[in-house]
């Protein structure tokens, strides 16, 4: 009995390996190509560090209460030291703690913005590219209108009308971000729509629904992934900009842009206050962009030129 079980398990394992042998080889090829790209690997390291810090950092920060607005006025504006690696701010809160907790906030926001933008943009892009016709026209013109206004300006306008705050900033960014996906997916869907394998599926009697989900969407995946990884970085920049302008997170919320905004008043003498959040933004955005570039080289080699 047990022996039979073992044999069966072995058999199942073998077939799983067999069934996915091609996929495994493909992934190994991707990994190989990616790992030979030094800047992409640097980006990956940065992004991995960012995710690690964002997920686990807040559990280990030295002064957790400082993140939510604790005040130690006797300790204010201390330069970096052994107790306060990044120094302290004007109410004596530990900047290191606030930067680490800020990473989690930033990850939350940028993930949300990117995912919502994809959820709006990809279906609209598919509809416009695959269906075409009048609906496609309407979607594309709407997209053009949105694209003609820089995303950040648009987000500022939306926040302006809804009132400042983290929630509203997130919503505004997501609303300003989707048109890029429509453009990308529409052009891709348009070319795949006339691919011979789609014709073949049609002659076999496949429904539009099936053609979209089985044939078109999987073949759009690569550029979407590349754009999403780039957009993670761009939306971090966006959210920080809104925070900096006072339209996003409000102090004492530990958000990098808002921290720079307040810290700006203490420049240059108390440089560490805005320097550390600033360098965090810089490095994180750079990391996501390098990853995006690397992924593009691997997944979508022709998309480069």
């Amino acid at each position, binding site marked *: 009995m047990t022996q039979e079980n073992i044999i069966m398990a072995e058999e199942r394992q073998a077939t799983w390996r067999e069934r996915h042998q091609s996929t495994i080889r493909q992934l190994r090829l991707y990994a190989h190509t990616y790992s030979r790209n030094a800047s992409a690997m640097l980006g990956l390291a940065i992004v991995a560090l960012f995710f690690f810090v964002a997920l686990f950092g807040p559990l280990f920060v030295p002064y957790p209460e400082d993140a939510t607005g604790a005040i130690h006025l006797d300790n204010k504006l201390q330069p970096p030291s052994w107790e306060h690696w990044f120094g302290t701010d004007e109410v004596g809160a530990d900047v290191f703690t606030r930067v680490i907790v800020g990473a989690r906030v930033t990850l939350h926001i940028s993930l949300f913005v990117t995912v919502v933008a994809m959820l709006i943009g990809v279906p609209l892009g598919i509809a416009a590219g695959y269906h075409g016709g009048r609906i496609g026209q309407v979607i594309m013109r709407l997209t053009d209108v949105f694209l003609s206004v820089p995303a950040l300006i648009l987000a500022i306008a939306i926040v302006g009308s809804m009132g400042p705050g983290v929630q509203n900033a997130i919503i505004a960014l997501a609303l300003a971000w989707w048109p890029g996906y429509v453009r990308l997916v529409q052009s891709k869907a348009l070319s795949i729509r006339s691919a*011979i394998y789609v*014709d073949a599926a*049609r*002659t076999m009697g496949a429904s539009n629904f099936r053609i979209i989900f089985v044939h078109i969407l*999987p*073949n759009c995946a690569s550029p979407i992934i590349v754009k999403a990884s780039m957009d993670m970085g761009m939306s971090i920049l966006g959210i920080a900009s809104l925070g900096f302008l006072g339209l996003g997170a409000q102090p004492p919320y530990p958000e990098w842009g808002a921290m720079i905004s307040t810290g700006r008043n203490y420049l240059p003498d108390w440089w560490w206050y805005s320097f550390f959040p600033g360098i965090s933004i810089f490095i994180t955005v750079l990391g996501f962009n390098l990853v995006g570039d690397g992924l593009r080289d691997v997944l979508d080699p022709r998309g480069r030129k």
Partner: protein
Amino acid sequence: MLSLDHLNVVFNLGTRRAPVPLKAVRDVTLNLEKGDCLGLVGESGSGKSTIGRTILGLNRIETGRITFEGVDIGNLNRKSEMQLRQSAQMIFQDPHSSLNPRMTIFRSVAEPLVLHTSMRGAELRERVQELLNTVGLETQFLYRYPHELSGGQKQRVCIARAIALNPKLLVLDEPTSALDVSVQAQILEFLKGLQQRLGLTYLFISHNLAVVRHMCNKTAVLYLGRVIEEGPTEELFQKPLHPYTRALIDAVPLPKSGQDKRSKLIRGEIPSPIDLPPGCAFYGRCPHALDGVCNLTEIGHFSAGADRYVSCVLQDPQRSAALS
């Protein structure tokens, strides 16, 4: 079994407001009986692929009718459409792009079965394996992706997919022109055997005259959307009646020694299918063209023996009677 009756297909190259019509298929009438292999021969722009695609419902019929087993393809309801999708299948020229690059061979071949039958799981896998065996592929390919297969193997996969539902008609659109000759030979012989075994009817679209001659029992030659000559294959190749058919046959370089590097050829190129001049479309290139006849009136189809038709004034019995 399949008949095309004065079929016209028009593409609009312009916009809806300012249409630029391209008459891809003009007044084509063809008949296929069960077990036939009809070759459609022509150069680019002749409309041969368009005809195939129209039969499978990928293009809109402008005027005329296509009937398949007594059913008018032009207006189908959902049920009769699913019926057609089972009994008529198409194989495309480029096997590489006719398989979804993100789908394993198993999923590609299984697609028609999933769409039309209730086969799932082990039963489905068995049937797919059986199909792969039928087309001479080993089951090790089941979970491979198309880019890992050679051109010939991919075309075999496409054939397996096309015969999965036991169709009656296969439209073969240049099935071997993307393949090497040694592989082409295998695929052609396989298709021939398959036709006999399964009692299939083929519409064989190709620009390669030698291949058509090898495969088909009937041949129709197309030029700019019109059938200019039609007949039993051997007769047509041995005694071509239309000057274009003659030129086409002469233009093919043969794999034998001692050919003249230069030969008398038809001059000029195929005119643009937009804005066709009146009269015979071949007028500008024809060595026998008659001024004032060929370029003025539309040329009808003249019967030239059993099952033979030609669209050339030189073959007009009335005209030759009048001349003599």
